[in-house]
């Protein structure tokens, strides 16, 4: 007997939740307990009174599972609203990464040239290294990191995705 796996779709979910102790554990725990995937998860409070946080989760699964994930999230008492940005219409998603690259001579120049193409900023430098700050979609950052790997990638830090629907209305 072999265990079969199903095909996954990538979805970006945006949640507003009460900013209370344990909320992140509640959500992360729901994903592990029910066997759902988390590709990335970001969280920060978004109101002046610090009462509400926005959590953005990139997850994957067959459409039926995505629907179930949303229903399960909505069932949590401190969750105000769940929006599936992928389904809700056009939306903007961004991720920020810090990318440390080392090298000298031609490699150093090539790194700067590529950074320029990707509109990455230099935020730290030594004689033998740079740290680039880059924002964009997950794909764009993946591509930038892949190129830097060939030049002299040292390490990467990524924030995970945040997103909002396009247009003047709140989701």
């Amino acid at each position, binding site marked *: *007997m072999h265990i079969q796996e199903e095909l996954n779709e990538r979805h970006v979910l945006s949640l507003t*939740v*009460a900013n209370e*102790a*344990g909320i992140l*554990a*509640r959500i992360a*725990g*729901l994903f592990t*307990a029910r066997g759902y995937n988390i590709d990335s998860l970001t969280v920060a409070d978004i109101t002046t009174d610090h009462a509400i946080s926005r959590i953005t989760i990139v997850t994957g699964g067959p459409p*039926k599972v995505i*629907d*179930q994930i949303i*229903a*399960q999230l*909505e*069932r*949590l*008492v*401190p*969750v*105000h609203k769940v929006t599936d940005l992928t389904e809700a219409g056009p939306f903007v998603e961004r991720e920020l990464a810090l990318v440390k690259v080392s090298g000298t001579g031609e490699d150093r120049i090539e790194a700067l040239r590529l950074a320029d193409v990707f509109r990455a900023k230099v935020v730290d430098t030594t004689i033998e290294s740079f740290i680039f700050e880059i924002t964009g979609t997950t794909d764009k950052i993946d591509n930038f990191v892949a190129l830097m790997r060939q030049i002299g990638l040292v390490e990467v830090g990524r924030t995970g995705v945040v997103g909002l629907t396009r247009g003047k209305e709140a989701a």
Partner: protein
Amino acid sequence: MPFRSSGRKGLPRTQGKDFIVAEKSGADILVECLIDLGVEVVFGYPGGAVLPIYDALFNHPKIRHVLVRHEQGATHMAEGYARSTGKPGVVLVTSGPGATNAVTGITDALMDSIPMIVLTGQVATQLIGTDAFQEADTIGITRHCTKHNYLVKDPGKLAGVIHEAFHIATTGRPGPVVVDIPKNVQVATAPYQKPEAFEHASYRPQIKADAKAIDTAVEMLAAAERPILYTGGGVINSGLEAARLLRELADMTGAPVTSTLMGLGAFPASSPQWLGMLGMHGTYESNWAMNQADLIVCIGARFDDRVTGRLDAFAPNSRKVHIDIDRSSINKTVEVDLPIVADVGSAMADMIALWKSRNHHKADLSAWWKQIDGWREQKSLAYPESATEIMPQEAIAQLYKATRSATDVIITTEVGQHQMWAAQHFGFDAPNKWLTSGGLGTMGYGFPAAIGAQVGNPDSLVICVAGDASVQMNIQEMGTASQYRTPVKLFILNNEYMGMVRQWQELTYESRYSNSYSDSLPDFVKLAEAYGWTGIRIEGPQELESGIRQMIDTPGPVIVDCRVAKLSNCFPMIPSGAAHTDMLLDPSQVSGSLSDEAKALV
């Protein structure tokens, strides 16, 4: 002890009493809240971290405390109390082992949607995280087995949390809520006022169904040729009115009715429209009717794997309507054509009203009923007779017969063969009379649940149908029943096996009975005597009727050790992973082994 926390700095404590609402300790605030919320009984066990609360309860004139023998017992008693009275069950336990012992009962209440509030003591706030004596991360441990949980770090917030906890436990899809209260929060003082009615910021269960969905459902029902109502525990949770509406809906449409294990009693077993329970050990007619129906209306049930069997063969030619208050139950395992998120009572009331206003009449379902009567001919609940041994099914049938004249009978069960036989052979005509552990399947549930039900219903005849193995899982609660003089009857179908495990081993593992024999059983009659109970042994068919009569007529708690046929199996049965149409009706159909795919399923 005034409470020091950053949030309360600068309060006018020193300016004289005129400025301050009367302050109470956290423990007193908790007890005040329980009174304000109408709590009459608390099931609990004291310990270091709840001593202030126990002191506040000392000789309390309004709140009765039932001292259990093990915290798991307290949780199941609270479940039995809740399920039989419709009120939430309240549990009070200490930190650390008190809380961890409660986890099984909390999980059981989550799976079966039982309203329960569990108050746990915790070490003082400044000790949290230091591995203090009897410290456990109760909030972390219970996060995924509660509907919601709270750690209260400020006595000023305790009243609000307690009221909110009751609100969440008892509304929407009910469930257990844990409130963890550090010991210093119980001792420290804060002003107390009864909280005003509030609307929760994010928790708002949908009660009323979408009108368009109701419209569609009514038209689907009116047009159906082979409809079936598939009902579940949600009807019972929704309240007595929902059970009445279900009868009206069934009467109005003429549709057959089946139910899950959790829903038994919501629809009367004495009705000609009743098909019996469905699923793994359900009747032939209910499972075939589900398989052949053109419309399934699922009311407060959740397409559990015990009900559906093999999913790709489940009710293949039907359209499905699913009414549930929990949206996550809809389309979880079975995709439905019409989801209706609502309280089932409210949705049924809307459907009935619309049906009447449209002047729909009972459709001619005679062809459908003829088909159903054909399946009924199978007599799938029939069992072999024996002159020498008590057949366990016969024991339940006799128990049912003997208690029919009693005005109010509540049956609880443990988990296993006896549970299924009780579900099959005992007829329930009213809701809240059948208490069993369905979702989690907790051995050790039934006996404490019976005590809890008896506490809530002192005049009812409460019988726990148990197996020789399950009953031992919380047998220590005999002391609780003695102490509070709850006259529960413990009816043990003793076959000296963990019968359901043995049955699966017979079906799947060529009768290799690995560790399923109940060796070294206690002498249950002597055990009864040791606790001041009455013990009765029934050894043969000729003693069955009189033994049951004696049990009913004996005041006080009674154990009946009913020796039944050792190797009886529970039929009909749909093996794990099989379709409804592949039902096994008797032992001759058992091959003794199953495929690896089937073996991998529970």
